């Protein structure tokens, strides 16, 4: 700590602080335009000039000058005020004063500073800029005439997003921000640039002319897409969510969002939302009253074991608990599951065996605290972009090492110093086992490891996985495998990350055990910056697991439920928020099952493909219309309150399940808060949490790890077939599950499914970028747009799974790797 004087006040600040930070910590606000606490100091705008007595009264930028012992700083002498006024005058010389039509008005740093410093005249005269406005993309409008060249957009795109779409172009007075060769913006559309723009140069196009900033009510919420658990501020007016607003103090991610979080909110107020219960009569779904619909449903639920349920991991913890109660206690069936039955197996069956718990023994915050990040699949960026930002920052700013094993290269491969080891698709477990074997062979395991339960069995089983043997089938060299093992074992702290989800079949219980083994063998567990983070797919995937919404020994899992629908042993299926027809593997199997089941109940926001087949459809509520808790992938439990009032004819799933419980003669909970108290006392790690405490601050559920070494079974290697390519599926960056299809933002930039292939295969097959090809597999065929990219290795194609219009499950039966042929 150093002692210094700011505006005649004796204060202290950490040695590493800049004058700006020291002042802010001590309640003195210095105006800034180009500074952002998340970015490296830049010192471009000269708004933060201060005087330091030791520097002979010279005016120096507060944002780039570190504090030193005994500094005497003045932040607002008449000279400084004059200098700042001049900076503003010079900026306003070129900046158009079109505030009445600028969406930034009211939230504009330049406008606020102009007001604060009373710059009502300008001593200079100059022309305004005449740059053309970039309307080339549907989400981000770029008006360089308003730009003050603070460079924050270009810097955030480099330092945090690591995409580098924007940069300074030209020189001197002609300098502007733009893309290569004056192209329009074509990037990830995360909108980080919009969030930091101090003026109206970068604006969210979906929000253009929707509302003035000051007329919006700011509602804090939690993003409803992936498992990262980002916090959101929704801009609400007239009970409509009109935009998302940036709050640099919100969440671990400091307000950073991805394209889904920032631009995918439109589903909340979509006019496609269901607004009335529907009951099938004479083959058609007809509007009905709630009483009528619930009566029909309740009657059908009195079927004991012939009733099954599929829930969505987007429901709140309270709703999932209630759904489970309804099934177990009132219906009398233990057939309930979520996420196709396999997407949670890494936790419910893998970690449960390896760690004795169904949660990840690491948090997102560990990413910045580790020495080595070991990422399985570059898709970790696409599935969880904000965790991807954390990885970017860790690697770029902290020099944390990054090793990736993946079946394709990706955005993370481009990070400085990143090593991507591309293996053949489907060979993950073998590779991980070979790494474990290498750790044992090279005596890199911790000394006490032979006392861990299961050590002998594992050591024996790993004999088949020598790096040399695995090398032949996975495509990596034995030296690569040994190098990964060496680097992982010798790092002081190392963290393993891998995504799970319906698109990642191979990330199952076997793989999570194989991953867990590595951390147990090397003792990278239970310490800060160590452990394994299994990145769950949806916003409450971890919560669904914590609430136990998956089958116990006596219940059927999702796949068995579908089989039972087909063979008639399940007669009533209650689907809450899932769309199995699009998201579960093997479309024809799912369709046959849903056609065969006697009675199908669906509670949904939209008329999905699954809802269209239902006998009763119940209109439910989105995350913005209900209260409850979501548990993020690293078990951060967060409370959401309703941001808008729900449509009076919709019910939350909580209300639906409550009504059904009472119709079946059960005891309904008084409120979700009371139910949550029950949850917190029954759920491991949730003790002490209440809605009241979570409303103030989110809390981590503790994870109690009992390590055990498990022998992971590697699936048989996929044999290549001549003329065929290996297809893998997964998530596209712009989408999450099937819900994002109803968010206009994601659909604007990634409207349809595609098949991504390597340049070499494209050349061999004479296929070009943007061609339409037919992809055929043993289960069907699908017409898809082609994307030829450098990241895909020869022999592989990637097809994302989110899209109803071209559902990958038409050609994919749930195998980790499917051999397909492409024809024009």
């Amino acid at each position, binding site marked *: 700590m150093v002692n210094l004087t700011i505006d005649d006040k004796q204060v202290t600040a950490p040695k590493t602080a800049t004058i700006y930070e020291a002042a802010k910590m001590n309640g003195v606000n210095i105006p800034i335009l180009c500074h952002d606490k998340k970015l490296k100091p830049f010192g471009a705008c000269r708004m933060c000039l201060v005087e330091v007595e030791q520097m002979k009264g010279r005016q120096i930028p507060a944002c780039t000058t570190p504090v030193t012992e005994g500094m005497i700083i003045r932040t607002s002498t008449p000279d400084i005020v004059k200098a700042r006024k001049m900076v503003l005058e010079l900026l306003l010389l070129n900046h158009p004063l079109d505030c009445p039509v600028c969406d930034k008005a009211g939230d504009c740093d330049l406008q606020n500073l102009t007001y604060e410093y009373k710059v009502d005249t300008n001593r200079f005269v100059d022309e305004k800029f005449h740059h*053309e406005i970039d309307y080339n993309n549907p989400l981000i409008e770029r008006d360089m005439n308003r730009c003050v060249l603070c460079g924050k957009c270009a810097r955030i795109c480099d330092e945090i997003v690591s995409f580098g*779409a924007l*940069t300074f172009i030209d020189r001197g007075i002609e300098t502007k921000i733009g893309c290569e060769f004056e192209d329009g913006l074509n990037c990830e559309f995360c909108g980080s640039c919009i969030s930091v723009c101090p003026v109206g140069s970068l604006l969210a196009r979906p929000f253009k002319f929707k509302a003035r900033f000051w007329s919006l009510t700011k509602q804090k919420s939690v993003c409803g897409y992936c498992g990262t658990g980002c916090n959101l501020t929704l801009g609400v007016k007239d009970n409509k969510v009109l935009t998302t607003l940036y709050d640099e103090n919100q969440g671990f991610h400091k307000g950073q969002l991805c394209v889904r979080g920032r631009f995918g909110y439109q589903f909340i107020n979509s006019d496609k939302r269901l607004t009335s219960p529907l009951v099938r009569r004479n083959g058609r779904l007809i509007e009905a009253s709630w009483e009528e619909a619930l009566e029909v449903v309740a009657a059908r639920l009195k079927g004991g074991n012939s009733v099954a349920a599929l829930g969505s991991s987007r429901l709140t913890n309270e709703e999932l608990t209630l759904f489970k109660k309804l099934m177990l206690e009132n219906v009398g069936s233990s057939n309930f599951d979520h996420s196709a039955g396999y997407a949670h197996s890494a936790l419910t069956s893998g970690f449960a065996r390896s760690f004795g718990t169904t949660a990840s023994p690491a948090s997102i915050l560990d990413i910045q605290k580790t020495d080595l990040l070991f990422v399985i699949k570059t898709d970790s960026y696409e599935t969880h972009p904000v965790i991807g930002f954390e990885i970017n920052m860790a690697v770029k700013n902290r020099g944390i090492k990054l090793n990736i094993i993946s079946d394709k290269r990706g955005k993370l491969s481009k990070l400085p110093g990143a090593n991507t080891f591309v293996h053949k698709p489907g060979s993950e477990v073998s590779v991980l086992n070979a790494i474990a074997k290498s750790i044992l062979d090279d005596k890199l395991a911790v000394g006490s490891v032979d006392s861990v339960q299961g050590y002998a069995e594992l050591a024996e089983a790993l004999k088949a996985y020598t790096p040399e043997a695995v090398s032949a089938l996975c495509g990596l060299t034995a030296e690569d495998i040994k190098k990964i093992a060496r680097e992982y074992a010798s790092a002081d702290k190392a963290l393993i990350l891998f995504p799970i989800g319906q698109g990642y079949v191979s990330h199952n219980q076997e793989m999570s055990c194989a991953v867990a083994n590595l951390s147990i063998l090397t003792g990278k567990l239970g310490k800060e910056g160590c452990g394994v983070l299994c990145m769950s797919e949806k916003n409450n995937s971890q919560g669904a697991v914590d609430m136990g919404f998956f089958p116990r020994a006596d219940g059927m899992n999702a796949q068995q439920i579908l089989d039972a629908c087909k063979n008639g042993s399940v007669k009533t299926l209650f689907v809450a928020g899932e769309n199995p027809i699009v998201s579960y593997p093997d479309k024809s199997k799912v369709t046959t099952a849903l056609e065969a089941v006697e009675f199908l109940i669906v509670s949904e926001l939209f008329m999905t493909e699954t809802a269209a087949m239902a006998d009763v459809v119940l209109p439910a509520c989105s995350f913005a219309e209900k209260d409850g808790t979501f548990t993020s992938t690293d078990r951060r439990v967060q409370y959401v309150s309703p941001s808008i009032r729900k449509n009076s004819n919709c019910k939350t799933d909580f209300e639906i399940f409550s009504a059904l419980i009472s119709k079946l003669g059960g005891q309904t909970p008084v409120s979700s808060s009371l139910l949550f108290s029950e949850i917190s006392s029954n759920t491991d790690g949730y003790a002490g949490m209440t809605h009241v405490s979570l409303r103030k601050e989110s809390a981590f559920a503790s994870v109690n790890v009992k390590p055990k070494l498990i022998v992971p079974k590697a699936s048989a290697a996929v044999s290549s077939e001549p003329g065929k390519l290996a297809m893998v599926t997964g998530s596209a960056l712009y989408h999450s599950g099937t819900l994002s299809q109803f968010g206009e933002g994601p659909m604007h930039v990634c409207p349809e499914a595609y098949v991504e292939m390597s340049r070499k295969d494209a050349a061999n097959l004479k296929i070009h970028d943007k061609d339409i090809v037919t992809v055929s597999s043993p289960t069907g065929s699908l017409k898809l747009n082609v994307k030829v990219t450098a990241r895909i290795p020869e022999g592989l194609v990637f097809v994302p799974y989110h899209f109803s219009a071209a559902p990958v499950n038409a050609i994919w039966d749930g195998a980790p790797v499917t051999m397909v042929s492409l024809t024009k």
Partner: protein
Amino acid sequence: MSDVVAQKTEEQEPEVDLSIADAIIDKYIDIPGNLMPVLQAAQDEYGYIPRTVADHIAERLNVYPSQIYGVLTFYAQFHLKPRGKFIIRVCVGTACHVQGAPRIVETFFDKLGIGHAETTPDLRFTFEKVACLGACGMAPLAMVNDSTYGAMTVQKVDDIVADYQQRPLK
């Protein structure tokens, strides 16, 4: 910006041989801070930086394409369009200006049919006005590639253009 966009659609960039760029990149790939030397060598080899070359360098050096474009537009030494074999520079600094440089410039414009920083369609000439060539005693001054022409007159412009018109392009 509008004319840039218009030009882009009008002019189809000629096929460029990326193996030249690859050879340059191979030479510098392991050296930190290699972007400038690579771009300079590419400029020397191709005479300008074609877009395909810029994109290729971006991919191989793992640098953002935007960053390369920022560098290319910042330094006057880089060119984004093909340049003529003969670069005619006319000084318009103070001394040359007083000695009649504007008329020299105008005459070149008339003779070549191109303006400042433009290139003739046959890629023979590129014309540039420059601020000072550092030889004020020879004002008004013109240069063609490395040859210097002092005490320029309108008649001399004709001679220079005629002379270089006859030289072989290859």
